[in-house]
């Protein structure tokens, strides 16, 4: 255990220990691989194999004339040197010896763990199909490029199901996809500084984007209007120019009212919307469908030409084909962008008017989307919207005019905008505001939610030598197929809604618009970097009817949480300073390294190595058991799976042996990353990505998506059915549900429960990571607390600090009342991420959130250009917000 050396200096008391200067063995570059989007460059100080402290590296450059990105960091990252040695760490492979959830474990060897897991894996894969084995990766793992690449490769080789977490946690901007054909519209954080008016909507960056929030305040000092929109008074609202506090879930009415003001006052940018949007496109008033070629000629009945749309040309007073539409090769997608242009040329499209057009059905009346929009917006005059939202009509008017006057305007929207059942309608309304003001696609403008690296390096690594045979699935519909979600809907929202949603769900599957996951069952689940049992919006339903029904559960995690607690095997995973990896987040134009500053604690290993050990065991056991190759089918292609070769394939025949090799592969193969050795990156910590000359991702050389900027600046058609920013969707389901245009719909509620419970990201944790840290808890109330309005508290005899019971028909949980006048009456607010084990009875807030079965029918529409299942782009979000509850003082 030790090598002995006798001290050579006399010791006479403990003061002698402290007379010696404390020195560091080394200082290493690093960061925290969590999904805060921060990727903050840190210096990590090491002595005797231990991380003692970290410090912000702070060597960032400016982008042009905007403030720089550094120094970056927050209190959570600065606490990690302590947290990584905390009691929550999983240090050894564990096997459950008690009942699930009982917390009784046996420490076992890696060899025993992987052998037993491999045997079960082979049993399920050969008896059923590898599809029945899922490998969920939460962001703690998937934002680390080498780690996620290792899963991509393992999944591709073995055929296991990999649920995508984007829609799974309700973060998928489906409204953005419906409108723009893209979900990746975000720029660097510095773009905030370039905005003239930024609406911070359903977001709280002062608390949740600590390293970047300065851009908002610097912009404000520079004259930018920063307008916060949130029902509760947030730390962001506190510093903003103006705060709007709509009632929870009424935001779309607010947005549509701003639209109404802008239209009424003629404050819109007509040239922009005529070229970039479908607002001048003609719609038949009889069918509510776009006027298409098949309406006008027999030739048009050929399905290949059904993406031809028309405008009314003022100069010729006739119907003309809209430029950039009508390519017969493919209804949507990047290929068509090669051909078309949005350039109007001599055409002068009318925005307003009604005309009679000769069609194959005879004479029909047509009008423009713009006209229909005006009609729709009349439902949201400020005085009407004020009744819905609680925001005064004057404030709505004022805000709309400020926003319209800004060139450009920006909407910085949180992922909360995706978590409502009708979040897509809100996003469509937000994009409408941005389109009317000509802001989308401009530096300092547009909808800022997300961007993501072009995944070339990842996919090349995942598919190299073997080709793509990867099962990436929508976890929301997977859950609907495998848990009792319809029954949950019946219990909470009644039979009518449950039957209706179920009918559309099944119809979508029957039509092959969305895949059917019910055929092979769900037998085994791996959960990596993923507290999957904590974030499902189903109370205990998912846990009881799906998760706990799994025959084998394997968790791979650095820290103990409720998912590991219910697992059969828990494998210890290295923490942020114990691994080599890469981080690339679009908000910051730098590639960031994670270095193995110290060896992983205990028997922890990084994700690559954990998967390598699994691959080795699968290969070994397949050989020992003489398992023959199986025939699998993915996306209509037959795939031969020979599990004896799993390790060989995983390591590319021994060419890739550790996460450094993976990282280097990704650097070499990725677009927009300087070709640098991992060793050099390790020394530097950060390196600026390519193609970043402004605050937005507009260069092809950059590693991020820039399709929307190209559409605006190069006039290339959008990847939507209409080739435009599409605000009118004439899919039969959208017509049926009255959602052809952006509009407002009341959020669902549970009868007899008056309060809406809102949640948001926390200042003192990143999801469930660091949420249980003792020091960070000491900066809060030391235990989970929930914010309540003073009047609501008084009416229930509750005082600040009291323990309260929050309940509805789904369940109950207990938390400390945090009475605050920043919370409007009729709502509760709780920061998220608290693990169930921190609550009485191991029951956290998710006990009262019964929304996981609310699969929005229109989010499962298909056979309509860009609408149809697209992993990580178009799939129904898990809904989190559409419920109500109540509270009472607890004994």
């Amino acid at each position: 255990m030790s090598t002995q050396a006798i001290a050579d200096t006399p010791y006479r008391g403990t003061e002698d220990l402290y007379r010696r200067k404390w020195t560091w063995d080394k200082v290493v570059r690093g960061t925290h691989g969590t999904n805060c989007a921060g990727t903050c460059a840190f210096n990590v100080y090491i002595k005797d194999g231990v991380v003692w402290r970290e410090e912000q590296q702070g060597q960032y450059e400016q982008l042009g004339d905007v403030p720089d990105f550094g120094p970056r960091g927050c209190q959570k990252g600065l606490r990690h040197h302590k947290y990584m040695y905390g009691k929550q760490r999983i240090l050894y492979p564990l096997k459950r010896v008690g009942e699930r959830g009982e917390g009784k474990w046996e420490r076992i060897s890696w060899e025993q763990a992987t052998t037993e897991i491999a045997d079960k894996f082979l049993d399920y894969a050969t008896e059923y199909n590898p599809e029945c084995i899922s490998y969920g990766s939460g962001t703690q793992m998937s934002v680390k490029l080498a780690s996620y690449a290792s899963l991509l490769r393992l999944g591709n080789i073995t055929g296991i199901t990999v649920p995508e977490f984007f829609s799974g946690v309700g973060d998928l901007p489906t409204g953005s996809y419906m409108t723009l054909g893209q979900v990746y519209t975000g720029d660097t954080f510095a773009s905030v500084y370039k905005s003239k008016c930024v609406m911070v909507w359903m977001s709280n960056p002062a608390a949740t984007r600590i390293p970047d929030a300065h851009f908002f305040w610097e912009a404000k000092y520079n004259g930018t209007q920063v307008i916060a929109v949130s029902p509760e008074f947030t730390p962001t609202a506190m510093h903003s120019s103006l705060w709007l506090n709509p009632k929870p879930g009424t935001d779309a009415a607010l947005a549509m009212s701003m639209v109404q003001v802008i239209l009424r006052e003629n404050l819109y940018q007509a040239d922009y919307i005529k070229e970039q949007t479908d607002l001048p496109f003609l719609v038949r008033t009889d069918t509510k469908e776009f006027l298409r070629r098949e309406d006008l000629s027999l030739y048009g009945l050929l399905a290949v030409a059904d993406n031809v749309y028309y405008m009314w040309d003022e100069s010729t007073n006739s119907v003309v084909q809209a430029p950039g539409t009508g390519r017969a090769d493919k209804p949507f997608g990047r290929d068509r962008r090669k051909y078309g242009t949005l350039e109007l040329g001599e055409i002068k499209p009318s925005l307003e008017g009604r005309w009679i057009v000769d069609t194959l059905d005879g004479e029909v009346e047509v009008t423009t989307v713009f006209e229909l929009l005006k009609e729709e917006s009349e439902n949201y005059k400020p005085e009407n919207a004020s009744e819905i939202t609680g925001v005064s009509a004057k404030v709505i008017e004022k805000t709309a005019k400020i926003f319209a006057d800004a060139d450009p305007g920006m909407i910085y929207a949180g992922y909360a905008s995706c978590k409502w059942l009708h979040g897509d309608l809100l996003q469509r309304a937000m994009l409408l505001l941005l389109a009317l003001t000509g802001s989308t696609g401009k530096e300092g403008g547009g909808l800022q939610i997300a961007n993501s690296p072009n995944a070339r390096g990842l996919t090349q690594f995942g598919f190299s030598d073997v080709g793509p045979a990867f099962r990436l699935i929508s976890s929301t519909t997977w859950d609907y197929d495998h848990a009792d979600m319809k029954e949950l809907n019946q219990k909470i929202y009644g039979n009518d809604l449950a039957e209706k949603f179920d009918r559309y769900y099944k119809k979508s599957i029957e039509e092959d618009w969305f895949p059917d996951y019910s055929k092979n069952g769900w037998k085994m689940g791996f959960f990596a970097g993923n507290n999957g049992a904590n974030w499902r919006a189903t109370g205990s339903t998912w846990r009881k009817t799906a998760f706990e029904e799994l025959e084998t559960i394997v968790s791979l995690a650095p820290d103990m949480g409720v998912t590991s607690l219910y697992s059969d095997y828990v494998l210890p995973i290295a923490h942020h300073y114990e691994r080599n990896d890469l981080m690339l987040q679009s908000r910051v134009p730098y590639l960031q390294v994670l270095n193995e500053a110290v060896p992983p604690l205990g028997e922890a290993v990084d994700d690559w190595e954990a998967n390598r050990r699994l691959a080795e065991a699968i290969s070994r056991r397949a050989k020992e058991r003489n398992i023959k190759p199986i025939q699998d089918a993915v996306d209509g292609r037959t795939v031969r799976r020979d599990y004896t070769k799993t390790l060989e394939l995983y390591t590319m025949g021994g060419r890739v042996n550790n996460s450094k090799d993976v990282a280097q592969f990704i650097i070499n193969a990725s677009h927009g990353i300087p070709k640098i050795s991992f060793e050099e990156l390790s020394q530097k910590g950060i390196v600026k990505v390519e193609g970043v000359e402004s605050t937005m991702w507009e260069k092809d050389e950059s590693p991020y998506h820039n399709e929307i900027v190209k559409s605006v600046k190069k006039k290339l058609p959008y990847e939507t059915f209409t080739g435009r920013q599409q605000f009118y969707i004439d899919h039969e389901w959208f017509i049926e549900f009255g959602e052809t245009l952006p509009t407002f719909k009341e959020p669902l509620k549970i009868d007899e429960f008056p309060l809406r419970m809102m949640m948001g990201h926390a200042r003192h944790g990143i999801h469930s990571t660091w949420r249980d840290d003792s020091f960070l808890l000491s900066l809060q109330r030391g235990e989970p607390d929930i914010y309540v309005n003073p009047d609501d508290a008084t009416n229930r005899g509750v005082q600040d600090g009291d323990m309260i019971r929050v309940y509805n028909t789904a369940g109950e949980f207990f938390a400390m009342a945090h009475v605050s006048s920043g919370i409007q009456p009729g709502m509760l607010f709780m920061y998220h991420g608290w693990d169930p084990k921190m609550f009485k009875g191991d029951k956290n807030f998710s006990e009262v959130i019964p929304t996981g079965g609310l699969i929005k029918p229109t989010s499962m529409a298909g056979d309509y250009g860009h609408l149809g299942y697209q992993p990580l782009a178009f799939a129904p979000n898990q809904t989190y917000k559409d419920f109500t509850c109540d509270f009472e003082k607890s004994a």
Partner: protein
Amino acid sequence: MERVTNEVQRQSETTALPRATIYSLFSQLLSSPHELKPLSLTSDISFEGLPFDFNVSEMIDNYIKYDHDELRLRYSGLFEVGDDGPPVPIREDLFLAQPAKLREDIVRFYDYFGYQLDEEFQWQMDHLSIELEFMHFLIIGELRSDNDKLSFQLGQYDFLEKHLINWVPPFLKKLSTLDESDIYTKIVIELEEFLLKDQFWQKETISHKDVAGG
């Protein structure tokens, strides 16, 4: 005041080896059985020259009844794994809820006296078995040192007082509340008795001399 030891009472040549052996014994007994081969122990082990009464035969009789797999299971369940961390953390820093500077103090002791841990153990410098091994290390240093026994003697006393005596009694208390009859509880009962006796004996061998100048 300057501290000195009374070598007549201390009798390092005869007392050090049995004391070091007991510290080493406890260090091994409280190491993870997942990381050590099974110990070969007999209850007739003697500690000749030990300056105070201490008998471990009953504890060893108990210990050797358990096979290695059983010990692994018990050890892990108490000290290594649990749904909210191990039920009784066997690391001082964790047991005392990570107070500031605690690990730094330990490392300063180790560094000062040249006690180096292998890489795989460095992160758990506060593990009970390692702290006990450090005591063994200091006592052997005392035995081997020709010209500065005092450094090792005072180091033992200070480390024992600042660390082991500071947390082993509450550690035992928590362990006892979980399972009084567990073999590891019995080991720590003996350990506490030994540490207290050793501390008392060490204190008796140290005197304070006023060296203040006029």
